[in-house]
C-alpha cells in the first residue's frame, strides 16, 4: 500500500507540471492584461508596471522564472493586490475555505447517508418520497437562491444569524454559509446512498444474513452499509476538493474571505500569479483527495488491493 501511495504521489509531479504549463500559457492567450482598465494608462506607466512584475521579459523566460519560484514555494506577488503575495493571500483565505468546506462535507456525508438509508429502508413509502423530494429540491435549487433565502429568514426575520462576514471565525458566522454549501451535497449523497443501499439490501449476502436471523440493525449497519458506502467514497474525492477550495457564490454572498472568490476574480483581473496559485492549489487538492479515496476504497472493500 505504501509503495502504491508513493508511486501515485510521484506520478502527480508530471501531472502538476502539465497543469501548470497549460494554465500559464492559456492565461496569456486570453486578451487583455492585468493593467488594462477603464482608466487607460499611458504607455510609459504601463511599461513601468510590466517591468516591475517582469512582464516585459519574453514569455518563455517568464515561465522559467515562474517555475523556479514555484519550486522554492514562492507563488509571487499578486498583481492586483500588490500589498500581498499570493502565498499571504492563501495563508489568510485557505484555512477559512477549508473550515467551511470541511463542515459542509461532514454535514453532507452524515445527513445525506442517514437520509439515503432511511429512504432505502422505506422504499416507495412516505419516508422515501419525502427524502427524494427534498433531495431533488436540494440539488436543483441553485446556491444563489438558497443563500439569500437563508440570509433573509435566519438573518433578517428571525435574527438568529448574521447576514454576512466572517466575524473572526465565530461559530455563528459559519452556520449560514456552511449550510448553503452543504445542502446540495446532502441531496446528492442522499440520492447516491438510497440507490446503493437498495442495491446492497437486495444482494445475496444480505439475504443470507437475514436468513441467519440477524437483527435489522446488524444487517443494515454492519453488512449492507459497507457495500453501500462505496459510491459515497468515490463521490467524496472530487466533492472534498471542490468544497475545501471554496465556493465563489457562497463566499461572495456571505462576504466570506476564503479563496473561492480568487478563482474567478483573479481570472477576470488577469492576475496571472493568483490564477496560477489557485490552479496549483486545486490541482493538489484534487490529486490528494483522489488518492485518499482510492486508499479508502481498499479499507472499506477488502476485495480491493493495490499491492
Amino acid at each position, binding site marked *: 500500500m505504501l509503495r502504491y501511495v508513493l508511486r501515485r504521489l510521484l506520478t502527480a509531479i508530471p501531472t502538476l507540471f502539465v497543469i501548470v504549463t497549460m494554465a500559464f500559457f492559456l492565461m496569456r492567450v*486570453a*486578451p*487583455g*492584461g*492585468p*493593467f*488594462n*482598465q*477603464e*482608466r*487607460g*494608462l*499611458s*504607455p*510609459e*506607466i504601463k511599461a*513601468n*508596471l510590466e*517591468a*516591475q512584475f517582469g512582464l516585459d521579459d519574453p514569455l518563455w523566460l517568464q515561465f522559467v522564472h515562474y517555475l523556479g519560484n514555484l519550486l522554492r514555494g514562492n507563488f509571487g506577488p499578486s498583481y*492586483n*493586490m*500588490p*500589498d*500581498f503575495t499570493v502565498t499571504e*493571500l492563501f495563508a*489568510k*483565505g485557505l484555512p477559512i475555505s477549508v473550515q467551511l468546506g470541511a463542515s459542509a462535507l461532514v454535514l453532507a456525508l452524515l445527513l445525506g447517508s442517514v437520509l439515503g438509508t432511511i429512504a432505502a429502508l422505506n422504499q416507495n413509502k412516505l419516508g422515501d418520497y419525502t427524502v427524494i423530494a427534498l433531495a431533488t429540491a436540494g440539488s436543483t435549487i441553485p446556491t444563489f437562491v438558497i443563500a*439569500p433565502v437563508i*440570509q*433573509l429568514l435566519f*438573518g*433578517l426575520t428571525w*435574527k438568529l444569524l*448574521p*447576514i*454576512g*462576514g*466572517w466575524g473572526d471565525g465565530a461559530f455563528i458566522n459559519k452556520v449560514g454559509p456552511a449550510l448553503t454549501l452543504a445542502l446540495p451535497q446532502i441531496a446528492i449523497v442522499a440520492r447516491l446512498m438510497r440507490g446503493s443501499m437498495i442495491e446492497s439490501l437486495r444482494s445475496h449476502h444480505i439475504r443470507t444474513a437475514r436468513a441467519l436471523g440477524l437483527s435489522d440493525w446488524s444487517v443494515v449497519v454492519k453488512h449492507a452499509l459497507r457495500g453501500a458506502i462505496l459510491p459515497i467514497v468515490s463521490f467524496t474525492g472530487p466533492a472534498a476538493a471542490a468544497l475545501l477550495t471554496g465556493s465563489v457564490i457562497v*463566499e*461572495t*454572498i*456571505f*462576504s*466570506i*474571505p*476564503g479563496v473561492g*472568490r480568487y478563482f474567478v476574480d483573479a481570472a*477576470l*483581473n*488577469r492576475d496571472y500569479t493568483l490564477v496560477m496559485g489557485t490552479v496549483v492549489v486545486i490541482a493538489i487538492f484534487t490529486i490528494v483527495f483522489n488518492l485518499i479515496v482510492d486508499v479508502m476504497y481498499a479499507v472499506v472493500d477488502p476485495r480491493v488491493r493495490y499491492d
Partner: protein
Amino acid sequence: MMRNMLKATVFATTMALAAGTFYTPAFAETVYNRGSAAEAETVDPHKTSTVYEADIIRDLFQGLVMHDQKTNLIPGAAESWTVSDDGTVYTFKLRKDGLWSDGTPVTADDFVYSFRRLEDPATAAEYASMLYPVKNAEEVNTKKGKPEDMGVKAIDANTLEVTLKAPTPYFLEMLTHQATYPVNKASIDKLGADWIKAGNLVSNGAYTLAEWVPNDHMKLVKNPKFWDAATVKMDVVNYIPTEDRSSAMKRFEAGELDSYGDLPTEQLADLKTKFGDQVRVGPYLGTYYYAIKTDKAPWDNVELRNAISMAIDRDFLAEKVWQNSMLPGYSMVPPGIAGYTPAMAKYADMPQIDREDAAKKILEKLGYTPEHPLKMEIRYNTSENHKNTAVAIQEQLKPLGVDITLLNTDTKTHYSFLEQKGNYDVARAAWIADYKDPETFLGITRKASGNNYSSYVSPAYEAAMDKAAAAGGKPEERMKDLTEAERILVDDVGNIPLLYYSFHDIVSSKLHGFDDNVMDIHPSRFISKD
C-alpha cells in the same frame, strides 16, 4: 483544607476581577462599519488605482491640502501656502504639530521623498501623472530625467517649494488625490516591502491601519498623534467589502453596515420606499459615454455621428434602464464644477420626436434607410446595465435604418481592445473625475491621451485646450476657454456623451457628517454616529 478553600476563593475572585477589568473598556468605542462594493487593492498611496481604496487612503494619510465633507479645499498637512505671481511656484508651510503615527514630525523632506517616489519608474505608480504638472516630474517617470531635478524642494523642515512647468490652476485640487499623499521614508527604509502591513504602517492621517483581512474587513483605529485628533469622533472604522449588493442591503437593514456606497440601482424605487432619506442619490462627477471611431469610414462623417447621437433617447436610458440613478448627459463635462458651464449638444432641448425626425433626414441624405441600413457594432464590457443600455439604443435606432449588433467582452478584454485602437464602431466608456476641474474630462479626448478611444483629432480643439492652459493664471478666462474647447468637441461629436453619473449611497440616519457631494467622498474624520 479550609485554608486551601480560602486560597482558591481569593484566587478565583482575583482572576474574575482581573478579567473584568480587562474586558470592560474604560469607555464605549464608537465604531463605524463602512461598507464598500469591492476590496481595496492597496493602501500604498503611490500604488493606488481604484475608488474603493481612495476613502481608506484618505483616512490613513493626509496630503498637503484636502477636501472637507462638502469637497471644499481646506488645509491638510500644510497649514498655508502661497503662489508666485506667474502661478508656477507654490510654497507650502507645513503645520508644526503634524506628526506621523510613530510620533516623528511630518517634514518637507517627507514630501520631497514621497513626490520623488511617486515618479520613480521603479514604484510603477499608476497615478504618477497626478504630479506631471510639476517641473521634470514626467521626465523622471519616463526615465528622461533625474529625481533631483524634479521641481520639489525642502526649504526648511516646515517649508516645501513646488515648481510647476506652467501655471496649473487645478494643481491644488490634484493634491487632494490620494496618489500625492506622503509616505514615511524611515519605515520604508527599515521594513522594506513589509512597511505597508497592518501594524507596521506609519501614516499621518486621522487613522492607522490595525488589521486587514482581504475580502472581510480592514480595521482602522483613531490615530492619537493626528494633529486634529480631538475632533475625530469615530474610534474605529471598519471598511467592509460586500461585493454582493443585495447582501449589502440586508446587512445594512440588519445594522451590520452603517453605510454602503453602491446600492443596487435596479432596486432604487423599492429601497427609497423602504429606507426613506437614508437612500441618497445625487449628481456625481462622472460621464458615461460611447467612444465612436472618428478615423474610420463611415464614422469619420461628423453629420452621421451627429445623427446617431441626436437620435438616442437619453431620458429613456436614465429613467427606464438606470432607474433614475443616472441623469441624461449632453456634454463631456458633467454639471457641478463651480465656475464652469458645460457646453451642451445643440439638440439637448429639442423634443425627442423632433430629434429623431432630424436624424432620420440626415441618415436618408447619407443613403441609410431601413431597406439599406447602416451597420453599426456596439462593444461594451460585461454588466447588466451596459447591456440594457446598448439594447435600448439598438431598439431606438432600428426604425431609423441603423442595424446594430452588440458585442460583449469582459472588462480587461474590452479596454485592451480600445487601448490598442482596435477596429470597432462604437464602444462603451466612462470617465470619473480625479479632481474637481473640467480638464480631467476634456484632457482624455486630446490627441496624445491614452484614453482617446474615439481617436478624435482636431487642431481647433487642441488649440482651444492649449489656450485654456495658457490662461492658467486667470481662472475665469480659463474656464471660458475650456467651455469653448468643449463646444468644439461636442459639435464635432468627438464622442457621444449619454449619461451623467449619480452617487447612490445608503447612509444610516445615525451617521452625521456624511454630506452629499459631487465627488462622493466622505472622510471618516468628519463623521460621527449617535
